[in-house]
């Protein structure tokens, strides 16, 4: 048995519930903290961004129309799956330079975030929705509804907990998303795609791309079919570009830079509200 060669994983992308290679067929090297090459990741381009948007758009109606309760069940299932694969993620994180303790915290935080937002899926409407007093014979309700497709630029510093802290509130609220994984360390993100895939999250609700953010971000942020973008890159020029491109079709733009993603302040229902539209309905009442 000692002659056995270990089977290495080919890291691909996660688009539309499948794991294709980048359309460009290009890859880049992922290194650990000592500059050793540990894997090749897909270097995605604008065409992968385009394909992800198409997948996210077609998945959106089905996902938003799931009952809130069912979305909660699915998020909970995702947490269960991640718990079961905890060792794999801890190993992936330690390979890239995390120490054992921090890798454990990173993974556990990700699991806890999923559980947290699983609980919110059928409650945020009650917290953020209102019944409004009006001076006529109508019931008047304001209710949050998902905005559509959210672009997520995941943080470099926290490749798993940060990533999950962003995906969970977005999909808990019924949106679908296109995620640009951490550039330096995309491996946990791609493996998280496998967890989503095994958890009844419909294909296309979450799409995960690896590569150079400066190659993909302009095409993502300018895409007319993207409804919102959540960015963690602190570079001023990048943020300005996102703001300008966001203005093209009035995307919701949220910048959360320099966050310590493991802190408890990073789980709160207001992150769900960031990607909701408020719909007000007038309903006539007799008397």
């Amino acid at each position, binding site marked *: 048995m000692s002659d056995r060669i270990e089977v290495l994983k080919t890291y691909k992308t996660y688009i539309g519930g499948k794991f294709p290679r980048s359309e460009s067929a290009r890859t880049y090297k992922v290194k650990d903290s000592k500059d050793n090459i540990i894997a090749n990741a897909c270097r995605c381009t604008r065409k992968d961004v385009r394909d992800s948007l198409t997948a996210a758009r077609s998945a959106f109606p089905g996902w938003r129309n799931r009952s809130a309760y069912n979305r909660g069940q699915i998020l909970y299932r995702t947490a269960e799956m991640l718990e079961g694969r905890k060792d794999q993620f801890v190993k992936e994180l330690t390979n890239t330079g995390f120490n054992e303790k921090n890798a454990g915290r990173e993974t556990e935080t990700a699991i806890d975030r999923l559980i947290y937002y699983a609980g919110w899926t059928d409650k945020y409407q009650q917290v953020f929705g209102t019944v409004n007093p009006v001076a006529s014979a109508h019931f008047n309700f304001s209710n949050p509804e998902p905005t559509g497709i959210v672009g997520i630029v995941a943080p470099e510093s926290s490749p798993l907990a940060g990533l999950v802290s962003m995906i969970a509130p977005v999909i808990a609220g019924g949106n679908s998303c296109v995620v640009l994984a951490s550039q330096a360390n995309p491996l946990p993100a791609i493996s998280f795609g496998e967890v989503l895939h095994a958890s009844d999250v419909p294909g296309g609700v979450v799409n995960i791309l690896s590569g150079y953010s400066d190659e993909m971000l302009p095409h993502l942020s300018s895409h*007319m*079919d993207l409804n919102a973008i959540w960015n963690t890159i602190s570079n001023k020029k990048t943020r300005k570009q996102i703001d300008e491109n966001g203005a093209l*079709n009035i995307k919701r733009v949220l910048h959360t830079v320099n966050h310590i993603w493991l802190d408890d302040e990073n789980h709160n229902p207001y992150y769900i509200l960031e990607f909701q539209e408020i719909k007000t309905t007038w309903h006539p009442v007799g008397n």
Partner: protein
Amino acid sequence: MQEQIKYDYLTNYPIDEVGVEERVARLNSRSIKKESKIQALKLALSMIDLTTLEGKDSPGKVIQLCRKALQPHSELPGLPSVAAVCVYPTMVPVAKKELEASDVKVASVSTAFPAGMVKLSAKLEDTRFAIEQGADEIDMVISRGEFLKGNYNFVFDEIAAVKDACGDVHLKVILETGELGTLENVRKASFLAIHAGADFIKTSTGKISPAATQPVTLVMLEAIRDHYLETGKMIGMKPAGGIRKAKQAIQYLVLVKETLGAAWLTPEWFRFGASSLTNDLLMQIVKQESGIYQCTDYFSND
């Protein structure tokens, strides 16, 4: 003269299906980029028969479609208008009124489209009615049941009778290839329609799946080519149904160019029967010109 023709509709010409598919696949691998792509997209746009053939069609819908035919996207005023608007006979006057002052033609389906299961006199009546209403082009269906029975002369006579009723009006003959079963039958039906007087041959009604496919289109284009080489007479081609993406449209244009040559690359000799293709072409044109990926929300929904 009929006896001397080389390609007739009574002979079974064997077709290498694998060969056809390989040729299509090879031509599909052509890469068309930048300026050529913009040219191809605009050309495809100008070849569209913008179609609405639903039981719930209303004058309002037809009017909207005609406006779109004249000016596909108001934010890009320089775009070509489409080739024609294709409607049911009862909607012809509505379309005619909207398009009167333009080059956009009004095409009408007839002969009891899409099934064609009525007697000949009713088909002729249907055709005459459409022409009276002002149709510039007639899209007729063949009797597939009779064709499959081997009753070729019956089908031939029907097409010839409709052609007679059409006079100078352009006649497109729909083979409904999805019901013909084999590529041999497609080739046979193509010759049959051409010899009976078709100005255009058209793949499908759009009501049957599969509708237009590239292998079927290639076989029909080759029938047109063989007829042209033999007689010097050009016949038009119209794939219809199932062509929704700009990329597909460009692949069809490559098929035409490589099989028939550039002379066929005009709306006079090649058409797309489509509706949703228009918006995808427009989105691609805007993408090419602005560099920004587009969203259907910003294009008229019809």
